[in-house]
């Protein structure tokens, strides 16, 4: 009511628009509208072309494409379950590793860091985000995997009593390549995104809010737990989902280090595959119609997974915002 009154008063005071200004405004509107619709059209086009490309696979295997982990290019039998499991497990583990670390980094940078260190650490985090994923892959394969095998995997495997359940879930090839190592590399890759966003969010907290909490005698931990985190909760979920989205779709680094075995991972050191790594591995050489279309169908499945994750994030954020 009052807002409308304000606007009409402003209109009465403002000088009349020139003809050029009005035309320009219209053009501006159209440009912005077409930019937005262009994005939608492109997105729709991608979904439709993935669905068309993957149709022969859906037709041949039906619902079995989603439930079977069989992947046999010779017999032309394809199922997405193994790759989907690998994708979800590696992304979830990566998030599990990256989340506490990035929280720690962000809180340290904002609340505790001596001003002298703030810039170098901040820059280091941003640099980490700028490293191409193939470099992570090569570093993972040639540096991290041997180290991981020698100092973590081998001691655990050798300490396992033969015949126990523990032995069963720690078997694997002792070279450090597998789903767990891939998840750790993924965690390092998504860490800077989450940490940088968290830092920005923490910086948006008005100084008075935090100062008041300190003034009431809170410790740093109490301020972080009771004031900072609740304040940024909504945005933080968004930051986490951003990281998760990247982890789900990451291709090259994962391909190098996950061990590339189709099917479900059966132990913590087992090799696996993700949707993105399977496509990267096989698309260039896939000649059969079913092989190609199964890979495209995998792409559609990844698209759907990412969409569901983002939709869940929106839902959560929406609910938080309403509280």
């Amino acid at each position, binding site marked *: 009511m009052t807002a409308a009154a304000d606007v009409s008063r402003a209109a009465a005071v403002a000088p009349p628009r020139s003809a050029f200004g009005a035309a320009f405004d219209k053009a501006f509107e159209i440009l912005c509208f077409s930019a937005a619709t262009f994005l939608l059209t492109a997105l729709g086009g991608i979904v439709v072309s993935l669905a068309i490309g993957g149709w022969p696979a859906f037709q041949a295997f039906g619902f079995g494409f989603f439930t079977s982990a069989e992947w046999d290019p010779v017999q032309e039998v394809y199922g997405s379950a193994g790759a989907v499991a690998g994708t979800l497990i590696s992304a979830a583990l990566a998030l599990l590793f990256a989340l506490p670390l990035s929280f720690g980094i962000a809180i340290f940078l904002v609340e505790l860091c001596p001003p002298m260190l703030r810039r170098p650490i901040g820059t280091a985090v941003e640099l980490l985000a700028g490293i191409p994923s193939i470099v992570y892959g090569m570093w993972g394969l040639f540096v991290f995997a041997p180290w991981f095998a020698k100092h973590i995997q081998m001691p655990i495997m050798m300490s396992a009593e033969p015949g126990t359940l523990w032995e069963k879930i720690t078997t694997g090839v002792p070279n450090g390549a597998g789903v767990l190592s891939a998840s750790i590399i993924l965690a390092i890759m998504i860490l800077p995104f989450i940490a940088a966003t968290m830092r920005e969010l923490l910086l948006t907290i008005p100084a008075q809010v935090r100062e008041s909490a300190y003034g009431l005698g809170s410790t740093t931990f109490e301020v972080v737990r009771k004031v900072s985190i609740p304040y940024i909760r909504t945005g933080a979920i968004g930051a986490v989902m951003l990281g998760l989205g990247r982890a789900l779709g990451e291709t090259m680094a994962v391909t190098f280090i996950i061990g590339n075995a189709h099917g479900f991972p059966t132990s913590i050191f087992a090799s696996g595959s993700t949707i993105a790594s399977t496509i990267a591995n096989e698309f260039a*050489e896939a000649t059969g119609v079913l092989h190609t279309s199964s890979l495209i169908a995998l792409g559609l499945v990844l698209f759907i997974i990412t969409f569901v994750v983002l939709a869940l994030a929106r839902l959560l954020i929406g609910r938080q915002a309403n509280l």
Partner: protein
Amino acid sequence: MIRKLVVGLAACLALSACGQNNAKKAGEAAAPAAGAQISGAGATFPAPLYAKWAELQKAETGLALNYQAIGSGGGIKQIKAKTVAFGASDKPLKPEELEADGLTQFPTVVGGVVPIVNLPDLQPGQLKLTGPVLADIFLGAIKKWNDPAIAALNPGVTLPNLPITVVHRSDGSGTTFLFTSYLTAVAPRWASVGASDAVKWPAGQGGKGNDGVSGYVKQTPGAIGYVEYAFAKQNGLPHASLQNAAGQFVAPTAESFAAAAAGADWTKAPGFYLLLINQPGAAAWPITGATFILMHKQQADAATGKSVLSFFDRAYSTGDAAASELAYVPLPAALKAQVRASWSTVVGPDGKPVFVPAAQ
């Protein structure tokens, strides 16, 4: 004003697009004169060699080759779609497939696949394996290096009590095709897996590319993998010796690949569809294969076809040294003559062969 700008931009775009089209047409028509360009796409394995040949010929004749190493599968797709002048594949197409698409194929150089092992106490080549034992290892049926089946082939060698880690290619590859074709040919038990550029591996781990496989093998004591010969040679990877069809244990060398190529009877292979697997000859390496070029028999533009064939003609005549330098094995002379003879089937719109090689 905005409209004018937009119209101007559109006009610019349209003009530049036309310009490109014209340039392209002119280039095609002028081939194989200086400045001509031919385009090819496909296998990654011969890509370094094609690049080297292109560099040499660019200097000699001005003919430029634009080769995209997108993988054999991609090369086959591209030539079928006629987006390139020639396709390249490590996996030959069967004669009936060639017929269906009106294609012809010919080999350019020979390469092969080498099993590499990580057994620190053994010398390179000291470990001897046969095809069936290799198949059992890759099937996961033989799990330890001191298995009696391996020990029987290696009397006097102390084999460690070490689990075998199988490493294979994770990406679709002509190398895998050749390797699994060999296992299929020599070991009936491998039939359950089959031969293709990607298979459902019963055991082990997949590394991406030759460097992925060799990386895993190097880092895992007791690992066995397979890589393409040029890669193994350039990186000095420790190989295993294999028993060939003549019952001899041979090492992978340029000579043993050449022996396999020379022993093969190409005259009985329509469309040069021949994998040089388990060839006769006491010195022949058993996992050998050529890499191939694919072309349409009916060339829409005679000049482009002529450029492609003259490129490979010259490569056959003058490119052997470059091939050997890069650890590829040149074709035997008799085979080159057969290939040159086969080029008469590549005809232009007028029905005449586009390229007649000079008498050698």
